[in-house]
């Protein structure tokens, strides 16, 4: 479904991503784990067109994303829940969800009802400004907004960041649930243990390169991963 080949990305003169290749198949949850600054977020931002690539290729369902106007990528049904949530703080919860269906307003009412059913807290607060929500609620809103676009695939960047352990559990169960509905997920996480436990496959990144890839369950048992990312 998503195929990245030999991607290189720079910030100014400094190359941050050095020839990364990765693949996500239809229906999978794939996680991308690694330390701070390894380049995980940069990869997601490049997929969505928020960051320009130097070279390489990103194919999504056959479409070349590097040649697609960034604001048109959502039309391909690829959504992105960015790091730090990036909700619209001065808009109400309801308006934020409407923004998720900005390019495709068909079935908006039904989709919103679905989102409200899954996230009842959002329904209670639908007339409230999104900036006044708690961190957990904002994360739910960011996920809900992505779902409003009826995506085939969602890129999720650090969804558990800054959340209490209870909410972390909740957000991971939501990711699983979303995936069960047939939405493919590429997950970037620092919480490697949680990420690996819900993923099919995983990639490990270090300083702009993929250093390991494989089955997520096996990776959980791998000594190197345990030592470096699971604190065991």
């Amino acid at each position, binding site marked *: 479904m998503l195929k990245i080949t030999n991607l290189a990305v720079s910030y100014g003169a400094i190359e941050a991503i050095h020839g990364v290749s990765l693949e996500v198949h239809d229906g999978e949850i794939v996680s991308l784990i690694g330390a701070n600054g390894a380049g995980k977020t940069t990869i997601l931002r490049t997929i969505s067109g928020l960051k320009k690539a130097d070279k390489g290729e990103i194919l999504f369902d056959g479409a070349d994303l590097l040649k697609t106007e960034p604001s048109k990528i959502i039309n391909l049904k690829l959504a992105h829940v960015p790091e730090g949530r990036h*909700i619209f703080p001065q808009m109400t919860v309801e308006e934020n969800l409407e*923004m998720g269906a900005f390019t495709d307003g068909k079935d908006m009412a039904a989709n919103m009802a679905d989102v409200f059913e899954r996230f009842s807290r959002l329904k209670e607060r639908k007339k409230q400004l999104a900036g006044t929500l708690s961190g957990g609620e904002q994360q739910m809103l960011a996920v809900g907004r992505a779902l409003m676009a009826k995506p085939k695939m969602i890129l999720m960047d650090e969804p558990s960041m800054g959340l209490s352990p209870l909410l972390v559990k909740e957000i991971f169960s939501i990711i699983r649930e979303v995936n069960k509905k047939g939405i493919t997920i590429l997950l970037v996480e620092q919480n490697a243990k949680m990420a690996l436990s819900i993923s099919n496959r995983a990639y490990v990144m270090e300083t702009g390169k993929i250093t390991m890839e494989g089955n997520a369950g096996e990776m959980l048992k791998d000594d190197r991963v345990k030592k470096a990312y699971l604190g065991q």
Partner: protein
Amino acid sequence: MTFSLFFQSLINGLNQGAIYALIALGYTMVYGIIRMINFAHGDFIMIGAYTLFYTIPMMIHAGMPAWISVFLAVVICAAVGVLVEVIAYKPVRRAGSMSALITALAMSLFLENLAMVLFGAKPHNVQKIFDLPSVNVLGVALPLNVILTIGIGVVMMACLQIFIKSTKIGKAMRAVPQDRDASILAGINVNKVITMTFAIGSALAAVAALMYCAKYPRVTNDMGSMMGLKAFIAAVLGGIGVIPGAMLGGILVGLIEIYVKLFAPGWYEAITYGILIVILLVKPSGILGKNVGEKV
């Protein structure tokens, strides 16, 4: 102060304020979306006024109603606004705020001097589009022209609010200043939204030109600079980047100016802007402005 003088001044102040408010909206909308002060915005009023000056006699000559000129002024101002943005501002958008500021100042000087070359330096008199009698309200003779001007201003502001609140492009215009990345991810073409913002802001300046000419039917090449400056101050007073703030700031500056003029005609600008400095000292982000750190 007698009641009739108070009431008369209230109407005059609202008239003046509605003009400032419409201009201030242009500053605030552009600032909200690209964090840039478009110092050439005041000169769009001049372009609108010259359009009225040239097209009103043409319309009358052709046997058409004079108010068609207003639509021409709106279209021409919007087109100039878009052109200025695309040709001059877009290329320096990534070069930092100082470059953008200087480009805007240069554009203002360019437009004023271009107008002087094209239309001459001496003032022209704009023919009135509507010439209405006065009515007697509560014992005060009020020119209907003024009432109509205030009415146009209020209707424009109401339309803008509805547009921003409920249309798709209006929502995009609210979303982009709040979070540019999230807007792109939602499928908003940010460049289009910026262009649209310039078009709407400049169109409002054309309406302000109409309102101004209804009161002071004189066009000069530099008429926009002082008015633009005052409207900019009004936008800052209300909270730059906040649309209702521009409306409030504009009306306030208009009212304060007219009332101060009653007591100290020679001092009114000094006193008016003294008051505004005090307000900003108390609330630096403007009356409706929010104290938020710069987004990164």
